[in-house]
C-alpha cells in the first residue's frame, strides 16, 4: 500500500496521547472534609471555563479515535499498488491539446491528468523506466526510458498545455514506434477521450485515463466574410457549435474593428451547430470577431476572428493568346485588377502582384511578383521529363486541395511531364510522372501546370474555379485569404512579397519571430496560441503589416456527437475509485468512516456506555 500524502499520518500522533491519558490513574489519599459541596462547585466552574477536562473511558471515545485514524488515512490518500508496476517500462502520454484546458475538472483537465500521472510515477517500483510523450499538434518525446523518477516528475510538472489540436494519429504512430522497440512497454494515455486512438498493444498493456466530464462547451467554429458586389457591404457567416449534451440558448456578439456591432441569441441543439449571418457590415471594416457570451468550460474557443478583404486591389497580369476559362475565373475573384496582354505587347515585366503565363513565357522572369504558368515552353528554370497523351491527371496531397473531399482528377489529351526541381513540390501527377508543381525559385514562387487548359476537361469540372482561386490566393503576396483565419497548431506557409528583405511574425503575446531570410520563407508553425498575429514584411522603402487570426481548433478537439475512444477507457466511476496503477482506498475508508459516524450517533442517542 502506498500513501500519496504520508504527512496525513501525523494526525495519528494524537491517538496514543489520548490513550495514555486514559490509562493514567493517579493514586489519591483520603482526606475527610466537612462537605464536598464547594469543591464540586469549584470543579464544575473549572470544567465550564477550561477547554480541557479529564478524559473518560467510554465507547464514544473509542469510536472517535477510530474516526481520527480513518480520517488521517483518508488525508494520506492510500492506495494499493498493482503488482504489475514492479520494474518494466512505463510510457506516459500526456494530451497537451486545447480541450485539456477545459475546466469541467478542477483546476483543469490537464492539471488533473498531470496530478494522476505524478501519482503513477510515484507508485511505480524502483527500476521502472519511464518514457513521456507530449501529445499536442506535433507530438514529441519528452523523455525516453529514463530511470530517474525525480526528473520524470519534474518534466511532467513542467509540461504546458497548448491551444492547438491534438494530433492523436501522429502520437499513436510515435507510440507504436516505441512499442515496436519494446513490446513490453506499459502505455498510460492521459487524455480527454475525444480523439480515437489506435495503438498496437494488448488491452492489458494499455490504460486510458479519461478526464472528461462532458461539461458544456460552445465554440465559434467558423467565421468567414464576403464583400457583396451590389451593396458594397460585408456579409459575415459564423457557425456556432454546441458540444454539450444539452440544447443551449447562446448569446453571440459580433465585433468589428474591436467595437460591438450586433448581438444575437441562437438556440443550438446538443451536438449540433447553427449558422449565423451578419449583414450590412460596413465595407471599411478590416477586422471581424465573433464571440459567444454564454459561460462554458473552455473560454478560448468562444471567439474567432477574421480579417476582411483589403480594399487594395491586387494587380494580375494575364499573358495569353486567348484563354476564356482563366479570364472568367479571374474576373469573378474580388479585389483583382486583371490585365490581359500578349507576349509581344509586353515591354517591361514590372508592377504586378501576380503574373500568369499561358502557353508562353519571357526569357527573364519578373522579379516583383509570383508566377503561374500553363503549358510553358522549354526553359532554363526547370527540366522536362517527357510527356503523356490521353492521360488521366489527378491531384496530389498538396494543401491546394485541403478540405476538398472529392476525387480530383480530369483527362488531358496531352501534357508535359517534369523532373521535380529541388525547390518544388508536386501538385498534380499522372501514372507516368509529375504534371504540375510549385515552389520558390529564389524569392519568386512559381506554379507550373504542364498542360494547355483547352486540351483538358479540367475547365468543365466543378472544382476548376476553386483550384484556380486557391492557386491565385496562394500566390498573391500577403493577400492570401487563407491566412486570415487558421487553427492553432497549423503550420502555414505565408505568402511573402518577393521584394521583402525581412519577414517577421508577431505572436499574440508579443514574441517576434523572423521567418525570412533565408528565402523562401520558412513555414510558420508557432501557431500554438489563439489570437491575432501580425505578418510584418520589411520592403525596400516601407514596412507592410498584415493581421491574421489563429482560431481554436474546436471541431478537432470536441465532437458534435457522442463518441467513445477506440481504446480501453475507464468509466467515470471507475476513474474515481481507481487511481493509476492501483486501487485507491480513499473511498472505501470514507464509507467506513461514515459507518462509524452512524454507529457513534446511534450510541450517543441510545446512551450506550461501557
Amino acid at each position, binding site marked *: 500500500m502506498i500513501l500519496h500524502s504520508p504527512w496525513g499520518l501525523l494526525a495519528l500522533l494524537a491517538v496514543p496521547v489520548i490513550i495514555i491519558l486514559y490509562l493514567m490513574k493517579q493514586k*489519591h489519599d*483520603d*482526606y475527610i*472534609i*466537612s462537605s*464536598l*459541596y*464547594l*469543591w464540586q462547585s469549584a470543579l464544575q466552574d473549572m470544567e465550564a471555563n477550561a477547554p480541557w477536562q479529564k478524559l473518560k473511558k467510554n465507547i464514544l471515545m473509542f469510536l472517535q479515535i477510530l474516526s481520527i485514524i480513518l480520517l488521517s488515512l483518508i488525508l494520506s490518500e492510500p492506495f494499493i499498488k498493482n503488482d504489475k508496476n514492479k520494474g518494466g517500462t512505463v510510457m506516459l502520454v500526456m494530451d497537451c491539446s486545447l480541450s485539456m484546458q477545459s475546466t469541467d475538472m478542477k483546476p483543469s483537465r490537464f492539471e488533473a491528468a498531470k496530478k494522476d500521472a505524478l501519482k503513477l510515477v510515484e507508485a511505480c517500483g524502483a527500476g521502472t523506466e519511464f518514457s513521456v510523450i507530449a501529445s499536442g499538434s506535433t507530438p514529441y518525446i519528452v523523455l525516453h526510458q529514463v530511470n530517474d523518477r525525480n526528473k520524470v516528475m519534474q518534466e511532467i510538472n513542467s509540461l504546458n498545455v497548448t491551444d492547438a489540436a491534438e494530433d492523436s494519429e501522429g502520437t499513436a504512430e510515435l507510440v507504436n514506434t516505441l512499442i515496436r522497440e519494446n513490446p513490453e512497454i506499459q502505455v498510460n494515455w492521459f487524455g480527454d477521450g475525444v480523439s480515437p486512438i489506435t495503438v498496437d498493444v494488448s488491452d492489458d498493456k494499455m490504460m486510458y485515463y479519461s478526464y472528461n466530464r462532458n461539461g458544456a462547451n460552445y465554440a465559434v467554429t467558423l467565421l468567414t466574410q464576403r464583400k457583396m458586389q451590389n451593396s458594397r457591404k460585408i456579409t459575415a457567416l459564423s457557425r456556432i457549435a454546441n458540444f454539450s449534451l444539452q440544447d443551449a440558448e447562446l448569446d453571440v456578439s459580433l465585433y468589428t474593428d474591436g467595437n460591438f456591432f450586433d448581438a444575437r441569441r441562437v438556440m443550438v441543439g446538443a451536438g449540433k451547430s447553427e449558422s449565423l449571418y451578419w449583414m450590412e457590415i460596413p465595407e471599411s471594416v478590416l477586422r471581424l470577431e465573433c464571440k459567444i457570451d454564454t459561460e462554458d468550460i473552455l473560454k478560448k474557443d468562444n471567439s474567432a476572428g477574421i480579417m476582411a478583404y483589403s480594399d487594395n486591389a491586387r494587380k494580375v497580369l494575364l499573358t495569353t493568346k486567348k484563354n476564356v476559362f482563366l479570364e472568367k475565373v479571374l474576373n469573378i475573384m474580388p479585389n483583382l485588377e486583371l490585365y490581359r496582354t500578349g507576349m509581344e505587347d509586353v515591354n517591361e515585366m514590372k508592377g504586378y502582384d501576380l503574373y500568369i503565363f499561358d502557353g508562353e513565357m519571357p526569357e527573364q522572369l519578373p522579379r516583383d511578383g509570383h508566377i503561374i504558368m500553363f503549358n510553358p515552353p522549354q526553359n532554363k528554370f526547370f527540366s522536362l521529363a517527357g510527356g503523356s497523351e490521353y492521360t488521366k491527371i489527378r491531384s496530389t496531397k498538396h494543401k491546394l486541395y485541403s478540405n476538398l473531399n472529392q476525387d480530383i482528377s480530369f483527362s488531358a489529351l496531352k501534357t508535359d511531364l517534369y523532373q521535380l526541381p529541388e525547390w518544388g513540390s508536386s501538385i498534380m501527377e499522372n501514372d507516368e510522372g509529375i504534371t504540375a508543381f510549385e515552389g520558390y525559385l529564389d524569392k519568386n514562387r512559381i506554379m507550373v501546370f504542364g498542360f494547355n487548359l483547352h486540351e483538358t476537361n479540367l475547365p468543365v469540372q466543378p472544382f476548376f474555379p476553386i483550384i484556380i482561386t486557391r492557386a491565385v490566393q496562394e500566390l498573391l503576396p500577403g493577400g492570401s485569404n487563407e491566412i486570415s483565419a487558421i487553427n492553432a497548431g497549423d503550420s502555414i506557409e505565408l505568402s511573402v512579397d518577393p521584394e521583402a528583405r525581412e519577414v517577421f511574425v508577431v505572436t499574440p503575446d508579443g514574441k517576434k519571430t523572423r521567418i525570412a531570410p533565408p528565402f523562401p520563407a520558412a513555414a510558420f508553425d508557432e501557431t500554438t496560441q489563439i489570437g491575432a498575429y501580425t505578418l510584418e514584411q520589411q520592403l525596400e522603402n516601407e514596412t507592410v503589416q498584415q493581421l491574421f487570426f489563429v482560431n481554436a481548433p474546436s471541431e478537432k478537439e470536441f465532437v458534435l456527437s457522442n463518441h467513445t475512444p477506440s481504446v480501453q477507457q475507464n468509466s467515470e466511476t471507475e476513474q474515481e475509485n481507481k487511481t493509476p496503477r492501483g486501487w485507491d482506498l480513499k473511498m472505501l475508508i470514507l464509507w467506513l468512516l461514515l459507518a462509524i459516524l452512524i454507529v457513534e450517533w446511534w450510541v450517543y442517542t441510545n446512551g450506550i456506555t461501557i
Partner: protein
Amino acid sequence: MSQLFNSNFLQKIQQLTLNARFSMDGNSAGNRKSRSKGSSVEFSDYREYTQGDDFRRIDWSAYGRFEKLFIKLFMEEREAPVTIFLDVSKSMDWGEPNKSISSRRLAAALAYISLANFDRVSIACVDDGIQQMCKDVRGKNFFHKITSILENIQYTGESNIQKAIENYRVQSGRGITVIISDFFSQGSFSELLKLLIYNKQAVYICHILSPQEVQPTINEAVRLVDSETREVLDITVTPSLLNSYTKALDNFRIQIEQTCIKWGVYYFQLSSNMAMEEMVKEVVEH
C-alpha cells in the same frame, strides 16, 4: 462546670445584651421593647384621640396648644420567645478550631443573654431532623438545662435544616429565631426563611465556617471524602482549582446573604477561630 461553659465563659456573657428590633404579641411582661404602644414610662409618639381610647392618656397640654385631643403613646415592654436552631450534622464537627465548639458556645451565649433579658428561650439541635431540644426556658436559673443539652450533642447525621425546622413547628407569633449552621445543607434556604418570616420571626442567620473551609490547606492530589455522605472526589489541587474554590465559596456566601437581604433577615459570617465574645458582639451589635 464543664470545659465548654466554664465560669470565665459565663462571666463574659453576663454583660452582653441581645438586641432585637421586632414586634411581639406575647402576654408576659419582659425586658424587650415592643412596637406595641402600651403603658410603660418610655414615651413613643402622639396620636389623635378617637372614641374608645383611654381618656386618661389625653395630653391636656397639647389640647391647650392645638385645641385638639391627642393621646400619648408609650413603648410597651414584652418578653420575646427566642428559638435557637443549632446545626448538629456531621459537617459541623470539623475544622480547627472545631466548628462544633464555637457554634455551641455561641448558642449558649445567645441563650444566656436572652434569659438574662427575661426572654423565653428554646433551643433545638437539628440535622435532618430534631435531635434534641429544650423548650421555653425562662430565667437564668434554668440556663443549666440548655448547657446540659449542648454538652451532650452527637454529631452524626446529614444536614437538612429546612426539613428539621419544618418539623419543629415554630410557634406562631412574633419572636426571634437564630440559626447557627455551616449551611452545607440540603433543602431550600429560601423556603426556610419564607416559613420563618411567615411565622413572624426575626431571623438571625449565623453562618459559621472553619478557617480550613475559608482557605483550604490541601496542596496535593487527594481523594476528598464528604464527612456526611462519605461521597468521594479525586482532585489535584492547583492554583486555578483553589481560585475556583474561593470563587465558589464567595458565591455560596453571597447567595445566602442575598437571600437574607431579600427576606429582611440578619446574616452574620462567622469563623470558628473567632472568640466567643467577638461572635456575640457581631450578632448583638449588628
